[in-house]
C-alpha cells in the first residue's frame, strides 16, 4: 500500500529535476500472444466499433494476431530492474490498444516489479504520452512520491478493426523502458519543453525554436513523428526507426545512453504526435559518476 499526506507548497523557484536517467532497455517480441485467440477480443472489438460504424479486421481476428502488453512489460521489468534497487513508481504508456483490451496491465506489472510500485497507465496522447509520463515522474520525484521510477512504453502491431483513416501502427511488437533514480549518477533531466498544435508546415520552425535551448554539444535523437522533417541545423542528430512509432525514439535514446563514446555529451529526444500536433523535447545532461 502507498500512502501520502498533504503535498508540499508549489516549488518556486523551479529547481533542477531530481530525476536521473540511469538505465534503459528496449526489446521486440516476435509472434503472437495466446490472448489474441481469446473470443472475448472479437466481442469487445465489435462492441467498441459499433457506434463508429467501423468493420472488424477479420484477418487479424481469425489469424489471432497481436501481442500482450503484459508480456512485453514483464520482459522489460525483469531485464531492467535490479531486485536490490526497488522501484516506487511505474508508469505504463501506450497509444494503440492491447490485445487484451480490458486488462489492468500496470497493476499486473506492479506485482512483478521489485518494490511493488504505485503503477498506472497513461494513454490517448500518442507519442506525447511518454513525455507526459516523464513530467508525471518528475512531479512525483519533486513532491516526495518517488525515489526510483520506471517508465515503460509498449506497442503491438495489430488492430482488430479497420480504422476510419490511416493510423500509425508499428511493424513489430516492442517495448522500451527507462529507469530513473533521484540519488546520484546517471544523466540528470535537464530540459522538458513542448509546443502544442504544431501543424504540418510549421514543425521545422517550432523544432528549431525548442532546440535553441539545447546545451552545446548535445546529440539530438529525432523520433519517428519527425520523419518528414529535415534535421535542425547547428545540432548533431540521428533518427529513430520509423517502424516503431511509439517506442522507436526511446529505443534510440537507450542506444545512445549505452554508448560510452557519448557519455560526456548531453542527449536529447524530440518527437511530434501527428494526430494532435504536440511537439516535445527532452534533454539529459552528460553522464555523472555515482557518488
Amino acid at each position: 500500500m502507498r500512502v501520502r499526506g498533504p503535498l508540499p507548497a508549489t516549488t518556486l523557484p523551479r529547481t533542477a529535476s531530481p530525476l536521473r536517467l540511469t538505465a534503459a532497455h528496449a526489446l521486440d517480441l516476435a509472434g503472437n500472444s495466446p490472448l489474441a485467440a481469446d473470443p472475448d477480443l472479437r466481442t469487445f472489438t465489435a462492441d467498441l466499433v459499433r457506434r463508429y460504424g467501423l468493420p472488424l479486421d477479420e484477418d487479424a481476428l481469425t489469424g489471432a494476431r497481436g501481442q500482450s502488453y503484459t508480456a512485453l512489460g514483464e520482459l522489460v521489468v525483469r531485464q531492467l530492474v535490479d531486485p536490490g534497487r526497488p522501484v516506487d513508481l511505474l508508469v505504463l504508456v501506450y497509444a494503440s490498444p492491447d490485445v487484451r483490451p480490458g486488462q489492468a496491465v500496470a497493476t499486473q506489472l506492479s506485482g512483478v516489479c521489485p518494490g511493488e510500485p504505485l503503477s498506472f497507465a497513461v494513454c490517448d496522447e500518442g507519442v506525447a504520452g511518454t513525455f507526459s509520463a516523464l513530467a508525471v515522474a518528475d512531479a512525483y520525484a519533486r513532491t516526495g512520491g518517488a525515489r526510483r521510477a520506471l517508465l515503460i512504453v509498449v506497442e503491438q502491431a495489430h488492430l482488430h478493426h479497420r480504422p476510419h483513416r490511416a493510423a500509425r501502427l508499428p511493424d513489430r511488437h516492442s517495448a522500451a523502458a527507462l529507469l530513473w533514480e533521484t540519488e546520484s549518477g546517471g544523466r540528470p533531466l535537464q530540459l522538458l519543453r513542448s509546443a502544442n498544435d504544431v501543424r504540418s508546415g510549421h514543425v521545422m520552425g517550432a523544432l528549431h525554436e525548442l532546440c535553441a535551448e539545447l546545451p552545446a554539444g548535445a546529440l539530438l535523437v529525432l523520433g519517428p513523428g519527425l520523419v518528414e522533417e529535415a534535421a535542425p541545423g547547428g545540432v548533431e542528430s540521428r533518427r529513430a526507426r520509423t517502424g516503431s512509432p511509439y517506442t522507436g525514439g526511446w529505443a534510440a535514446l537507450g542506444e545512445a545512453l549505452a554508448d560510452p563514446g557519448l557519455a560526456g555529451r548531453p542527449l536529447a529526444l524530440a518527437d511530434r504526435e501527428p494526430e494532435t500536433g504536440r511537439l516535445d523535447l527532452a534533454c539529459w545532461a552528460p553522464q555523472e559518476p555515482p557518488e
Partner: protein
Amino acid sequence: MTALEAVAVHLPPVAEPIELVGARLGLTDRQVRLFRRFHGLDQVRVDHDGDLTDLLTAAATALAPLRKNAHRVKYVLHARSLPIAAPYPHNPLHEVLGRLGLTHARAFTITHHACAGSLLALDVAGRLLAADPDPEALALILAGEKTFTRDARIVPDTALFGEGAAACLVRAEGEHDRVLSYAVDQHGEFDGRLADDPELLARYQRSYPELVIAVMEAALNEAGESWESIRLLLPHNVNQISWQRICRQIGYPPEQMVLDNVPAVGHSFAADILINHHTATGRGLLRRGDRYLVAASGLGATFAAMVLQH
C-alpha cells in the same frame, strides 16, 4: 496543498429501470430482484445517442468556472476505468479539448486503476501542479464512460454501470477542498474477467471488505483523523449493501454516508466520487472545515481512499 476548486456533474437524461437493463443483459428475474432488493439499485442513467466526446464535453461545460479560467488549464486528465474506450485512432479526449478551446493543455488519460481512477487522477494532478512553476495553473479532471460492452454494463452479482459524468478543477493551493491524504493499494492477483471466473469473483468478494477498510484507515491515519472526526463518507456507487456492511463493521453511522446515487444514477465508473461530492455539497452536508473521506475500488484490482477538508 492540492485543492478542488470546483466540481460539476452531467447526468444523461434517460433513466432506465434496472429491469430493462437486466433484460438486455439476459439476467434472470431473480438476478434483477437481487439487484433491486438486496443491492439497492433502481435505475441507471444512460445516453443512447451521445458518444464519449459528448459525455465528457457536457460534464466540462457544466463546470461554470472553467469558462473564464480555460487559459489557466495546463493539464487535462481523463480518469478512466476502461483501458480502451474508442477505436484507435479515434481520440475522444482530444476532441473534447477542441470543443472546449483547451488544445493548449497537456491532455492524457489515466487508467488501470479502474473505478478508483479519479482518486489517482487527483493525486497526479496535484503533483503536476505542485511541481509546476506557475502557481495559478489548473488541472481539469474528467470522469465518465460509455456502457458500450457487457463488461462496461455489469459486475456480476454486484453492480450495474451508468453513464454519469463529472468534471473537476484542481489547483496546487486553495482554501477548499484540500486533499489531506491519499492511500492506494493494488492487487494484481484479482485481475481477470470476473464474469467467467466464479472462483476469482468469490476470492475478490471475500477480500473486498477487509481491503477497503484497510485503505480507508490508512488514509485516515495519514491525515491524523479518525472515524469519529469524519463528517461524511463518499463511497463509490457500486451498491448499497456492501457499504452498509462496511459501515457496520467499522462502526460508522450509515446516515453519514452518501448512497443516494446508487439507486438514482448507477455505478458511473470513476465519476462516482465526484458525483457524490456534488450531491454532498449541493445538499449542504458539508460545512467549512469538515473532514470527509472518499473511497473507491476498481476491478483489477485497486483500492483507494482520500481524506479531504471542505
